[in-house]
């Protein structure tokens, strides 16, 4: 990582704060999921993410991205098929999978440090080691001074950074990020992306980043998967060349960007050329 404009706001985590368990592969096999109303979200869906991979999952709103993340986190059960993290099947939430939601979802009665400590595994909570880890995580997300602030005293970006620290607290082997940076300002977003990259690279954590922002995906992910249709199917699945974080005009991204946009919104292809959108 060379310092440059795209490192703006980046804060390298304290070395001790990096989770060190290594990643796990994630596998979805013939997964079917349907909510009580409407057409199935997934009808025999397959996806394989390798250990330590950083995958960006793109798709239009309502295409099933969030459902996919919730299935892997164990918050939803598939109607049929298997979700595996490592060798084991997912039957409910487990310690080694961390999830960060679209909104911070901090517990309003706990201060920032308490919220991060909430994410610690049971054996670490309340110990000196846990205390130290909370301190390091808060420094890693750039909020060393905020430990005793309550959620309502935090700005949106600060709250989301505390939420990231909470998700990292149990040193997850798989980190699921469900459109986590949509509501924060551009500078903070860049900083948080760099932070996730740094932590994930160091610990070889498997990361699944759900986003609808093609630029975000091309900047940080090693692989881009675009979902489309209902039931959802993979419309594009491709590696991204080069080391993240990438500049938007890095070599080879232009072609990928066109492919991703085309897969995201096939309708745009049919827009008459005189609107200037035909080629995107």
């Amino acid at each position, binding site marked *: 990582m060379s310092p440059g404009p795209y490192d703006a706001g980046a804060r390298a985590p304290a070395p001790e704060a990096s989770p060190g368990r290594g990643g796990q592969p994630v596998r979805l096999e013939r997964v079917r999921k349907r909510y009580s109303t409407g057409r199935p979200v997934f009808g025999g869906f397959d996806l394989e993410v390798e250990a330590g991979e950083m995958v960006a999952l793109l798709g239009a709103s309502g295409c099933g991205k969030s459902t996919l993340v919730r299935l892997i986190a164990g918050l939803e059960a598939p109607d049929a098929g298997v979700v595996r993290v490592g060798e084991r099947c997912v039957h409910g939430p487990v310690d080694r999978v961390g999830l960060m939601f679209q909104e911070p979802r901090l517990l*309003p009665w706990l201060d920032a440090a308490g919220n991060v400590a909430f994410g610690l595994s049971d054996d670490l909570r309340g110990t000196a080691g846990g205390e130290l880890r909370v301190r390091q995580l808060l420094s890693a997300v750039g909020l060393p001074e905020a430990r005793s602030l309550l959620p309502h*005293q935090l700005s949106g970006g600060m709250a989301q950074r505390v939420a990231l620290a909470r998700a990292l607290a149990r040193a997850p082997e798989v980190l699921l990020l469900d459109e986590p940076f949509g509501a924060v300002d551009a500078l903070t977003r860049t900083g948080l992306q760099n932070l996730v990259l740094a932590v994930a690279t160091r610990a070889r954590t498997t990361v699944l980043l759900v986003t609808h922002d093609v630029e975000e995906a091309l900047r940080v992910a090693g692989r881009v998967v675009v979902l489309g249709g209902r039931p959802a199917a993979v419309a594009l699945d491709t590696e991204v060349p080069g080391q993240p974080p990438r500049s938007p005009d890095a070599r080879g991204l232009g072609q990928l960007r066109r492919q991703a946009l085309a897969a995201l919104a096939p309708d745009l292809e049919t827009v008459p050329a005189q609107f200037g959108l035909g080629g995107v």
Partner: protein
Amino acid sequence: MSTGVTGTAGSAVGWRGVASRRPSLRWAEPWFLPVLLLVAWTVATSVLKWFGPSQLPSPAQVLRTLRELIVSGELEPHLAASVGRIVVGYAAGAVLGTGLATAVGLSRTLERLLDPTLQALRAIPSLAWVPFLLLWLGIGELPKLVLVAIGAFFPVYVNAAAGIRNVDRRLLEVGRLHGLKGARLARRIVLPAAAPSLLTGLRLGLGQAWLFLVAAELIAASRGLGFLLIDGQNSARADLMVVSIALLALLGKLADQAVRGVERRLLGWSDAFRA
């Protein structure tokens, strides 16, 4: 005093706007009305003599009666009886109310089994319980304690159950994501999240407990402030009646302050809680 307009997130300005610009006088504002009433009372009784002492005694007369009651040791058993009944009855009602509300809030099955019945029982007016409790439990302490407990139970139950039902599902999901279930989920997510409603219920329950206490003591007691009140009526002593009413007001206020103190400690995190 922070007027906090330029402060960052978290400056404490309520929706009623910026605090008074002269904070030096604000402490006196709650005392304005009581002092005014006291002056009016004194003028009406001692100066203008609109009321005779048998109708409305003067504040000085009431104070004299109070001192006599204290010095003669007559007041203490009444006070002790009432306070004791409140403490025991309220504790029982509040604990039961919180416990049942938690159970009903966490289990749909229990909710369907219990809630409709409890909501129906709630509609029974306090005084309607008295003859029935006397019939079943005799005229000892027990029926009074039960009545106070009933009084405390319903506000606590209703508010706590509503609070628990309305806990933000997204926070529950955070709990589930961290492997919490059942009792641990209740302790670490549900109860803290429902604490504002629960404490509202505890405060309302306390008020209702005093109401039911006086109802019990008016009808069937030989001690207690409610008995002192009815005793004053029977012996045509308005000063006794005013003394008991004033003591009930004072004790009720003190108890309420105590619960408010707890509320302030537990709900310091809440953005809305800025009394």
